[in-house]
């Protein structure tokens, strides 16, 4: 049995769905944040496997850009979470509901 590109695409889709479900279900900001990283890595896996299948390097290049942006997102996201932690010692998004309407 050979592992074709479909397997990678299905794995990527599963990772993406797990990430999306985690973002919607979990209430801890850091776990939600991890879920987003999972989604971005699903994207990377899709780009790489498709690029390999097409014998095209563009897909591999794209992954580098996604990785760099994801790294920047980690910096921004953790900065926000740390500043929330300083004002109230919790990372639960349910307790952040000052504004309604």
């Amino acid at each position: 049995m050979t592992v074709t590109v479909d397997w990678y695409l299905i794995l990527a889709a599963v990772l993406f769905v797990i990430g999306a479900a985690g973002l919607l279900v979990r209430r801890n900001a850091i776990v939600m944040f991890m879920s987003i990283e999972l989604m971005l890595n699903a994207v990377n896996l899709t780009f790489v496997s498709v690029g390999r299948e097409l014998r095209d390097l563009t897909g591999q290049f794209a992954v580098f850009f996604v990785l760099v942006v994801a790294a920047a997102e980690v910096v921004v996201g953790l900065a926000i979470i740390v500043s929330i932690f300083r004002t109230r010692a919790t990372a639960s998004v349910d307790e952040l509901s000052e504004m309604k309407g």
Partner: protein
Amino acid sequence: MAPDIDYLALAPEITLAVTAVVVLLLDLFLPRRQKYWTAIVAVLGVSFAALPLIALAVSDVGDRAMLGGSFVVDDFALVLKGLFVIAGYLVLLMSVGYVESDRYYQGEYYFLLLMSILGSMVLASSRDLITLFIAVELVSQPMYLLAGWRKGDLRSNEASLKYFLLGVLASALLLYGMSFVYGLTGELTFAGIAAEGAGKAGEPAFIMAILFIIAGFGFKVSAVPFHFWAPDTYEGAPTPVAAYLSVSSKAAGFVALLVVLYSAFPDASGVWGPAVWILAALSMTLANLTALRQTNIVRLLAYSSVAQAGFMLVPFAAAATTDAVGLGEAFAATVTYIVIYAFMNLGAFAVVIAGARKTGTGDIEGWGGLGSYAPALGALAAVFFFSLAGIPPLAGWIAKLVMFGAAMGAGSPWMIALAVIAAINAVIALVYYARVVKTIWMDPVPATAPEEEVRTASVAGSLGLAIGLSAAVVVVAGFFPSLVTFFSDATKVLAGG
């Protein structure tokens, strides 16, 4: 082989990038008392960035393409870059007084704002999915931080976290869609996708990819049902940042939608047209109905900006059922709407900043009698709010006119239905815009209003300048619509109309 770089075409971006770095370095070395220099350098830098734009506009070289066609400076890019520079300039003017009165970090504020403006400039020129993605992120990421700029304020924290989580979710959806487009066409440039994707409009994976991309940008332009973050983020963020989010950041989302849908998926308009139809109808209706019961002026403007996004989406839906000429008209209609909306909404937010300082509150009730003790501000508030409602002869009615023109021009029953929905919504919107103006002019001054000196204190000079410039554009463009349509007609090149 070194890539072929046209430095004049890149000059606006280079100017902004250099300015941003200079601002950051200045902030490092300046003593606390002299931090205001960072604001001056930022304003000067944005003004200088406009000069190469003018040089590019008058040069007769034509379109300048670079980096294998990934970065193109054509008429569309120039018009939108001009808009981003002017909007950025106005937001900087609004920020100066606001930022100084807080105890927080000025240098970082201007640095992040300049970076976001830089991102929107790159966005207008990007013609491949990766450049587009990087530009969109460069617009958004500084804004996640700026929304939480008042670090000690819980509401600002909440604004920032909500915007961040939903923003990165949008990026993930967008990227997943892009990876599918790449997989199906083997291309990342818009021209390549348009050529390869011509026969693929019916494939389920291709449809899914387009829907993912629309959903991703739906968050950026805050269209219903992707608008949850907008009201909370606008309310919690510093008000100039909310103004920037509602104008430049939203316009950036629309620019991305315009270039992707019209130039990468021209043959799939049967897919994205109906999807955008639903977004437009939902955004207008739900946002306007929710805006009716808002008591906070910034939240009201937030829902109003969601509803306005719905109006801007209407011409997109028309593109699915029209010919090449109609496609150009629909494209130009959205651009016209964005340009006019930018000025009237920036003006409205600037009035809100000035009014909140005078009345000491963001609640609409507290604004009673503002017209009696600050008549000029009250009159300008009326100008901007009536323009947002689309009342002639203010500029807003031209935006509405071209939008209805594009919808009716398509002539299909679905588009006429959408035009009817838009017309009903324009009436609903008038109710809440007029209510604010009524409170300002007809209600008595509430007992909770601050004392006389606060109420009659003069507005900061830079803020006054921002209000004056926006008001001038809104009034003049209302009488001479060709001032705006001249620019939006020039952008039609991208739609092939």
